[in-house]
């Protein structure tokens, strides 16, 4: 019961984070969790400060849906880390969601502009 409530509250945020992770992996190729988190922070120019741990909830969700895959590898500085890569279904999903996101943000922009007048 409680679980469902939590999901609905943070749906938008979750969805956004998932999309960011997918996009990052699509653009950068396989990355470990820390790499993804750092990349997202860099891109957002530190506008978005996330608890890096939350990225793992998103990674789990994407894995469960088989949109990304994971395997253990070695990082740049020779440490063992788990690397994530986007899958084919993940790419399709990314395309669909990106389009969706653009539509919604366009609508939002229009709506906000209207409200300002």
């Amino acid at each position, binding site marked *: 019961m409680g*679980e469902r409530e939590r999901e609905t509250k943070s749906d938008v945020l979750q969805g956004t984070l998932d999309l960011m992770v997918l996009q990052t992996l699509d653009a950068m190729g396989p990355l*470990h*969790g*820390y790499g993804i*988190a*750092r990349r997202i922070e860099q891109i957002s120019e530190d506008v978005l400060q996330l*608890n*890096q*741990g*939350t990225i*793992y*909830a998103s990674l*789990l*969700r994407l*894995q*469960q*849906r*088989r949109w990304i895959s994971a395997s253990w590898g070695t*990082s740049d*500085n020779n*440490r*063992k*880390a*788990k690397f994530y890569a986007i899958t084919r279904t993940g790419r399709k999903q990314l395309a669909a969601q990106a389009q969706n996101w653009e539509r919604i943000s366009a609508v939002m922009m229009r709506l906000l502009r209207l409200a300002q007048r």
Partner: protein
Amino acid sequence: MLTWLAILASRVRGLLLGRRLDEEFDREVASHLELLTQDNIGRGMPCDEARRQAMLRFGGPVQIKEQQREDRGLPFIETTLQDVRLGVRSLRRSPAFATVAVLTLAVGITATTSMFTVARAVLLRPLPYAQPERLVEISELNPLKGWTHTVVAPANLADWRARNTVFADIAAYIGVDDRGASEYQVFLSGAGETQPLKGIAVMGNLFDVLGVGPMLGRAFTFDETFEGRDQVVVLAYGTWQAVFGGDPRIVGRSIVLSGRSTTVIGVMPRDFFFPNRSAQFWTPLGVKPDVFVKMRRPHWMNTVARLRHGVSLAQARDQMTAIASELERTYPDTNTKMGVRLETLHGIMASDARPTVLLLSGAVALLFLIVCVNIAGLQFGRGVGRAREFAVRSALGAARGRLVRQLLTEGLVLSLAGTSLGAAMATATPAMLLRIAPSALPLFAAPRIDRIVLLFAATLGLLAPVVFGLMPALASSRVDRLSERTGSASRHTTKVRELLVACEVGLAVVLLVGAVLLSRSLLLLRQVDPGFSADHVVTFKVRLPRTRYPKDVDHIRAFGEIERRIREVPGVQAVGATSTLPLRGTTWTGDATVEGRGVNDYERELRHESVTPDYFRAMGVRLVAGRLLNDRDGAASNVTLVNQTLARKYFRGADPVGRRIKFGRPLEDDPWMTIVGVVADEKQDRMNQPASPEAYVPMPQNSQNPMTFVVRSTNGLDAAIDSARRELRAVDKDLALTDVAPLTDVIEDSIGDERFRTMLLGAFAAVAMFLAAVGIYGVLAYVVSQRSRELGIRLALGAKRQELFTMVVRQGMRPVIAGAGAGLAVAVALTTLMESLLFGVHAVDPTTYAVALSTLTAIALAACAMPALRATRIDPLIALREE
């Protein structure tokens, strides 16, 4: 949709691999933190600070891990597993409760499942024939003869076959007793010892009507029905396996059956049986064709017919009734008032067992209710005991739903244990039931445990505790404050528990009354005088093969010789033979006339048996008037004995000795027989039915084959049988004696149905009473422990211990009296339904109710006495110090 599946698969994996994934995630988090720390150091932070900052940026690794764990698996199942563990642990802490509950449920499941197995085998499972619902039995009825359901005459059958348009075909068979068990016996000789086989003789089209073909070889052709072409046999699968070792080349093999060379033409499939499992073979009727043209009397064939597609039973009934009236007009002599009766084959096969099975199924349903109520009561009691635990957990933040869920899970754990145990025990019961009820259950369907039965048990076992456990669970989880652990809440639950006990007692009383009624019936039935004295008497049947004993004189000589030889065995007091042993279900009948009566005043279907002179001494049948038969009463002597019922019916106190009767109707030309004596009535069909008129003629006058021998001897039963077998071999080494039974067993077999249902209902009632006693004891013991302080104070203030005892017992008996009252009322209503199963007692029988009530009172008082005794032993000082 696929995404959804992928998520589920991954979550199940998460559930299964929980620990490994935990470790993996730990490593991943560690490596993440390490990388973050390194970067921080790279930015010039000191080592400690770098690590601290990394933790902050990452955000509570413990929460993240917790979250991960929850998202990864199936929390619902994990919680349930946790509840199960918790449940098992808490049940282990109260082993007494757990044991009682599991055993109670196991007993309930065993009884219910066993009865379901039987009911399914007898009433529900379809017969192993093609479209069995279209199979119909046709029998004849005749109000003039008092026939409601009798075998048919061959010529009538032939006319039905020729004239009807409602049946695809009608087949006939002979050689079954009134329960459908095979009686037609042959002796297989050749390989080793002569072996008796039982089967039935059939019309060639039987297997076509049933719609089942042999698995090997072929079925009969219609022509093979008749004499001359009838030396063929089809074997049952079991016979083929057991007797012929599954010989793959059995078809075409020639075997010797009762001295006749016979060809095996087929083997039926394993699941096939007809008319029940006792048939080991099928062989043609072997009659002359003109039997089907001329013979409208006697009636001796069983039938089975297949309805055409689209024809209903009612339509078939209408047409067959019309045909019967046509025959009545054409053959007034034989067919006056001769009607037909059509029943579904399944209905006919199950009809004997139906009332018993329904009664016992109803009883077992009541028993199961008691089991459920008992478990509910137990859970209530435990709930009260655990109120403190729940109050603490609820204070620590457990939601009420969570507590209820835990209680239900505990219930499920209990029921899982109880159901498994019960189902395991139920697998043993069909064999046991069959052993104690060889005749009460129709042999045509072997009860066995299969998937459906197990499903039934599982459904009952899992559903019942959930339903009956819900109420106590809700009640005991309703604890808001710690202080409520005693006081009003427990008084409330005590009331509920007393109500439950009253229910249990009520239900148990219903069963008890039923059981007492049946027991009294059985006792009365056992006291009925069968008209003969059964102790120290053995009986067995001898059939002479017709190939070597073709004529009547051969029979008379052989049977006479056997009797003479056995008589000379030391210790044998008397030996006789009869064509019809009492209480074995079959008999010869024929219309008969008493001299001096009007044209239409004759005895319809008078029973008659052919006996040797010493039959009456061997059986211990009393002579009432005149003389018994003797060896001078030969083939042409034309004498007869009659039973008392016939004497009463036709001579009203006048002396029948010297009067004459004949077989045949008044105007028919049959020889008159002089009545030379009157003997006491023997019970004929069943112990619970009054005797019908009957005549006994000397064997030479009306020779019959087979004959049943009756030997009264001081040698002990086994020795008597051994010596009889020896003498039989001495007469003809190929003869075998069959149907060996002490006469006492013949009586016991005839009341097998009554004994079976009495035993079962008695067992159910005993279990019910025991459970009720447990319930009574449980509540009262709890009440006493709750009131120990009050009782202590009473004692301290000078109450006598005896007064306390009475007080506690009175409280314990309160729900018992309420329940007994309600139960008796229900019993009156329900037991009238079983009136037809009773003998010598009415459903509303004061003695029965008195016996049931006093039994209940005794048991209830015993259950109350133990807690009450404990109340009197309370030490006031200790009781007061407890608080």
